[in-house]
């Protein structure tokens, strides 16, 4: 019966969404064994694996045209600069922004901190409200706690309904009360919940509030257009979208970037430096002090090209199929509690759960013995854990190379864990 179920889905998956075998071939790590078993990598919300094309782009840079960008006028320097800026254009195109609006950072976390420092330090005042949600990642909470402490602003967190969806009426009411800033994640990294950020940003704009969208889990998994979202800032990380570590993006609306003070000081972000002061460079360079992660940017472009060739609509559909299949499969495991929205359409490729009294860390260890890599813990979302009333959850998260077989393996692993724990 289970086989029939699985194969019905598989047919669909193979024929309609992705050429899975070909894609899996592109990821060298998938050949690796863990504890003698086939690697089943289901920790993609933490970081994704890299296709050969991304690795090759890094090697090519280091072996053929490694040089500092925007500094040296020699052939290597010019080639490095060209490729670096081509990456910026690629990132801009990917989210339908202009290259001038793309600031390279280390990742989502630095992107949000940049907004906190460069915009927030001047703009957030005593008594202001910073509106967040209970499902934010620490990187969209802690910077604002620090800003609030410094300025005397107050934080307010919008609550979730029983399915872990944002209470939109509460959100809209809170926006009516004119917060200074609304920070919201487009997809929860724990619940998978997709938020209607376009609606939230529209309301925020009306109310004169700045909108900051954490797109760490959305840009890697679905088409995202900053025009449609209508946000002021949007942040994401390369390493979660098949790209290298060390590189991320802050999108910022051009006018805002122009008005803002710089963040870090140093080379590249200046136009002129004198003993008694400096003039800033044009945006986005004003926000890119010091040597950037040039290789990282170049690797990110390779990842963006790879994803674009597949097509982000297809990536999203593949996620959806896997999710439906996973939810179905996990519902069949007795003693397992699933978190997040019931309808797959309201979720991205993340499934969180707990199995009876088995602690997620113990579960992760047992699954690891089977070659299955999931994340266990608080997922950098402790306030959400408190709201769920748990100290931790287990989380399986997907990307383009995951298959029904991976989910079947997960299910078998869960059954094994129940055996070990005598359940």
């Amino acid at each position, binding site marked *: 019966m289970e086989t029939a179920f699985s194969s019905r889905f598989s047919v669909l998956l193979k024929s309609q969404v992705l050429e899975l075998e070909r894609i899996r071939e592109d990821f060298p790590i998938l050949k690796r064994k863990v*504890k003698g078993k086939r690697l089943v990598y289901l920790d993609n919300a933490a970081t994704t694996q890299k296709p050969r094309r991304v690795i090759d782009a890094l090697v090519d840079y280091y072996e053929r045209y490694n040089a500092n960008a925007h500094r040296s006028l020699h052939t290597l320097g010019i080639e490095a600069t060209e490729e670096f800026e081509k990456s910026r254009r690629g990132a801009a195109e990917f989210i339908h922004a202009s290259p001038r609006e793309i600031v390279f950072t280390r990742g989502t976390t630095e992107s949000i901190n940049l907004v906190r420092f460069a915009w927030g330090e001047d703009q957030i005042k005593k008594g202001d409200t910073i509106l967040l949600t209970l499902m934010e990642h620490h990187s969209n909470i802690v910077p604002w706690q620090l800003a609030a402490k410094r300025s005397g602003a107050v934080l307010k967190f919008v609550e979730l309904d029983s399915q872990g969806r944002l209470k939109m009426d509460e959100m809209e009411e809170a926006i009516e009360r004119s917060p200074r800033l609304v920070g919201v994640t487009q997809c929860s990294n724990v619940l998978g919940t997709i938020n209607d950020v376009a609606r939230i940003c529209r309301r925020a704009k009306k109310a004169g509030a700045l909108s900051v969208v954490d797109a760490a889990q959305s840009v890697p998994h679905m088409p995202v257009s900053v025009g449609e979202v209508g946000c002021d800032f949007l942040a994401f990380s390369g390493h979660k979208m098949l790209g290298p570590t060390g590189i991320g993006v802050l999108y910022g609306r051009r006018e805002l970037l122009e008005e803002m003070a710089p963040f870090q000081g140093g080379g590249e972000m200046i136009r002129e430096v004198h003993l008694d002061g400096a003039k800033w460079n044009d945006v986005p360079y004003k926000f890119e002090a010091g040597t950037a992660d040039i290789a990282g940017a170049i690797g990110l472009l390779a990842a963006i090209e790879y994803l674009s060739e597949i097509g982000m609509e297809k990536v999203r559909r593949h996620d959806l199929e896997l999710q439906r299949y996973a939810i179905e499969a996990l519902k069949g495991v007795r003693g397992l509690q699933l978190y997040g929205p019931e309808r797959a359409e309201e979720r991205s490729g993340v499934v969180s759960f707990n199995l009876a*009294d*088995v*602690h*997620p*860390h*113990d579960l992760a*260890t*047992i699954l*690891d*013995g*089977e070659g299955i890599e999931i994340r*266990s*813990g*608080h997922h950098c979302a*402790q306030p959400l854990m408190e709201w769920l009333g748990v*100290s*931790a959850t287990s989380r399986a998260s997907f990307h383009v190379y995951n298959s029904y077989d991976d989910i079947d393996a997960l299910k078998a692993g869960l059954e*094994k*864990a129940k055996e*070990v*724990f*005598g359940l």
Partner: protein
Amino acid sequence: MSAEIYKEIILDYYRHPRNYGKLENYDISARDSNPLCGDEIEMRIKVSDGGKIGEIKFQGKGCAISQASASMLTEFAKEKPLDWVKDLSKEDVLKLLGNPDLGPARIKCALLGLKVIKTGVYQYLGAKLEDPSAGE
């Protein structure tokens, strides 16, 4: 790091932790958490005459390894002189757990209780040294 480390005895201590609870009347109290996984252990000790561990209880939340090892440790420590805690080693704790092959990540879970008991006892002994009324 796989299923083999979950020996019967560990699961038993996880589900039925000995010395679980909170002493109301205590001399030593310490708490720590593991930043990686969020496991928490708090211990309280009532020192008996002669500087021994009289009563000891722990509370906490976390995985089977961290909770079982803390519980085993409280049983093992009871009636031992405070100084004995100084010599308690990582190996002692692993022996209590039946020497599982924990690997570098999970071993921190196993040693959280040890860290807490040592912290508490050191603080207590340190404060006594500094306390002039102790007359030493």
